[in-house]
């Protein structure tokens, strides 16, 4: 089972690593890159806590092997904030609307909503709920999360039309 060398960019930082083929991308990010914001809630692709952006698209980091990410650009929750470190408008909306409690599902929601609002800047309530349905949360009852997405959409740069 030979290890394989990969090169990829994570949050604008270039990585070169040798990995076992079976190492999931989620474990690579957590254990090799030290980016523990990507959380493992189920490891079988349902809960959404490990969602990251691969070449801009939201995907489950538990449903990819690190070798499959060779050559990609990855953004994790650690890479979402503004360059100066301020919260992104979506992160700020989650804070303003009590969109998180324990915070375990939060990273996957932040990354998912970042992609969702980019593609769908002016969503209906139904679209918001469907867009969120791939991320499980047990604390908030989704109320604050839905409110945060509504609010973030209102202030989204491409949503004001």
């Amino acid at each position, binding site marked *: 089972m030979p290890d394989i060398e990969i090169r990829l960019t994570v949050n604008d930082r270039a990585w070169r690593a040798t990995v076992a083929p079976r190492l999931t991308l989620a474990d690579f990010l957590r254990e090799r890159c030290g980016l523990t914001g990507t959380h493992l809630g189920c490891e079988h692709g349902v809960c959404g806590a490990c969602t990251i952006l691969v070449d801009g698209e*939201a995907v489950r980091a538990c449903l990819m*092997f690190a070798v499959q990410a060779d050559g990609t650009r990855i953004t994790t929750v650690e890479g979402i904030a503004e360059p100066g470190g301020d919260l992104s408008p979506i992160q700020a909306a989650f804070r303003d609307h009590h969109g998180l409690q324990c915070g375990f599902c939060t990273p996957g929601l932040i990354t998912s909503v970042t992609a969702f609002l980019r593609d769908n800047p002016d969503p209906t309530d139904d679209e918001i709920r469907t867009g969120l349905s791939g991320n499980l949360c047990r604390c908030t009852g989704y109320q604050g999360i839905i409110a945060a997405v509504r609010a973030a959409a209102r202030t989204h740069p491409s949503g004001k039309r």
Partner: protein
Amino acid sequence: MKPAAFDYHAPGDADEAVALLAELGDEARPIAGGQSLMPMLALRLALPEHLVDLGRAEGLRGIEERGDSVWIGATTTQRTIERSAAVARAVPLLARATPLIGHFQIRNRGTLGGSLAHADAAAEYPAVAVALDARFETLSPRGARTVPATEFSTGVYSTDLEPDELLTGAVFPVWSGRCGFAIEEFTRRSGDFAVAGAAVAVELDAGSCVSRCGIGLFGLGSTPLRATAAEAAATGSPSGDVTPEDVGRTAMAELESVPADLHASAGYRRHIGAAVVARAWHRAVQEAAHA
């Protein structure tokens, strides 16, 4: 919940991939988007010694309109299909089925070929393919061949593919004329696999008689099914004389063995199956009538 060890191969094209599959034998599995296979690997329900990653193979990706049909490469993501204006125009049933697959994060990685070759009897794409009379293109060291969608699935999670054979793409015929399409499914939650579902394509002639129809069923057997008796009963009849509930009942009457699990007994699945067929039939005919 970590996968067992395996060797990783990333062939550059389909020929190389099938050569690898032939060489590695039964212990090799192809992987495309991995959205179905990865959970099985994590749960150690699948223990391949070799994974042949099709993600970097040339020639397996893309959407091409070819006259009266549309070719879609096997490793084309569901998200690409969802966003494709060509698919929306030429194969509306496929376009409408796509948002029902999992969640958008899954569709960003999940592929057409993965969904078809994984052959989950409760999945949307295989049922759409049988309803539309799609043809699947395969490649093995013995060459390429074409398999009708209706003959592709052979049982629970099993297909007509040989161990060294790859699904390379699918060809969806374009239904032109006065056509209508609808997909209806019943799921426990948003994004779940269907308890039961139906994909319906209907073509009406100038006199509003049903000239052609396809009813694909999912979640209602060990494979995706074509409700042939219901189709036959409807074909040739004035669309107004065909009551959707009858189509649903007839479709269920021809089922031999319906799956049962915690979420639905066989009897309840039939009950839901009749309802989703009726609802999909109704919507498809409405659309055709107004086309």
